[in-house]
């Protein structure tokens, strides 16, 4: 899986911000991880900082982990290609979501439902994944990994992510 240095390129910014699936990974100081789904990503103009939105109702374990370990992983994907972009970094700020975040999450919710429909699934419930209230996590990007479905990855590639 290719590793790229920050910042995110224009092409990657576009892919990340339009993702229909957002995964957020964290871990506490004793290396016990947690994962949760995000509902929006915004990339700063510099391409070196991202904000990921997580519904407040489900962000509890992530926040607990961040108190002892600020590192975060964010994976974004689109179903038709199964390609993923994983951004790793350090959380520098945690705040409540605002109206702009809510609008971003609403657009994500629609894309999430569209991908459900593309996959032939019933979208009734997909249209109601929780998107409010939100917690916004600002992350300084330290590494970027891109991957297609990757049958070529080998054990001798130590930088694979």
């Amino acid at each position, binding site marked *: 899986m290719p590793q790229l240095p920050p910042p995110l390129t224009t092409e990657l910014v576009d892919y990340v911000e339009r993702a229909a699936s957002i995964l957020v990974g964290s871990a506490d100081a004793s290396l016990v991880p947690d994962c949760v789904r995000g509902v929006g990503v915004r990339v700063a103009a510099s391409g070196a900082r991202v904000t990921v939105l997580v519904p407040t*109702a489900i962000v509890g374990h992530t926040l607990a982990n961040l108190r002892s370990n600020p590192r975060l992983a964010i994976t974004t994907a689109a179903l038709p290609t199964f390609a993923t972009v994983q951004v790793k970094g350090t959380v520098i700020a945690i705040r409540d979501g605002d109206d702009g975040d809510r609008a971003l999450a609403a657009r994500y919710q629609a894309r999430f439902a569209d991908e459900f429909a593309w996959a032939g699934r019933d979208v009734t419930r997909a249209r*109601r994944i929780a998107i409010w209230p939100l917690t916004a996590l600002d992350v300084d990007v330290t590494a970027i990994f891109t991957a*297609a479905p*990757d049958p070529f990855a080998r054990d001798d590639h130590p930088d694979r992510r």
Partner: protein
Amino acid sequence: MTITLASIDRCFQRTLPGVIATCDRDGTPNVNYVTSIHLVDDRHLALSYQFSTKTRLNLEANPHASLEVYDPLTLDAYRLQLRFDRAEDHGPLFDMLACRIEAISSHTGLSELLKLRAAYVCEVLSIERRAGFIEASPADPPAVERGEGLTELRGMQLVSARINRAADLDTLLTETLAALDEVFGFSHGMILVPEGDGRLVALALHGYGDAVVGAEVRVGQGLIGVVAKTRKLLRILGIDADLRYARAVRAEFQQRAPTGVTAEIPLPGLIDAASQMAIPLLVQDRLVGVLALESRDTLMFSQWHEAFLQVLANQIASGMDRLADDDDDDDGDAAAVAVPAELPRRAFTYYRNDDCVFVDGEYLIRNVPGKILWKLLRAHAADQRTEFSNRELRLDPSLGLPAFKDNLESRLILLRKRLEQKCPEVLLVPTRRGRFTLAVTCTIELIERETA
């Protein structure tokens, strides 16, 4: 209420990918999808590892993992805390997961490239429902639960009775498929039999409209072929999602290193199936057929179906074996029936190199059934014979039937159905046990060639 793995079984039926987070020894988390999760027992899960991933490396360095899975009907999310236990690269669990991957990879032309490397077995430390992931609404239709238990037992009794009543192989196969639809709602099914040359041929189909009897699958290809090869039941839910993923992998392979990628193999059945199940029909260790069921409903087949369908499969296999040797010891005189004049003309061409028969230039049948047809047509042309017996076919060394378990009855059914579809002027009509008539209502021209 304590949530058990069994109570969230639907989450592991491959219809929606799960999410797994791991962490390296430096404290950097990693998060990714996991598509294949298998319940090992009430405390363990197995994750399939096809490609090298950071997830695998992290698990080996730090056994803690967090998994989020989703109920495909309600979209409820569940958070599972895991501890990596062991990697298995052989044994029954590995073989079962490998079969599932092989069924997909062989279908999509990736047999040599997309393989299971290991099953990663993890202990489940805790399970909790992720409250608040989805907003509840009173307008939600209730999740449909499938009735299990006594309903299926009663249904099994009914299907079993029909299997038992069947007087010939054709009736056994067609009645079984019809009963599986009537009783259990398995609306698309087929039974295939091995031809002995690495192929399976569909002998009976249900729910496919005008689908052609005689459709073929090579052993080892796709779900049915893999079941024939491994002789193990396979149930794949969300096969549409699996195929989408495999095709994405295939596209990636073709772009980066096209060698090793072969053409996607068209297989008989629904083009938009969402779930499939195939069960080997075995008599002792001998494969007598494969029962294949499929549905556009992602969740059509449950683990419970595996149990009772395997019982029925045993009965079907025994019935097939019993009816396969349907001979009549009465060597009654073969009657000669004159063919009326002024009939339509059908030209049959036999190719000796592959025992293939065409009628009016269109493929009809090949191999042993082709040889049988040619023998019957020549006998008819020579002395107007119309009455034949299974026994005389078995005694004819030129047909190349094996001395034991020759599958003759299956081959005659296939030939009969192909003639009904492609040349209704020449029919095989069963008369009594082990005997049949060649009913001809056309003038026949016979052409014999070495090769096409």
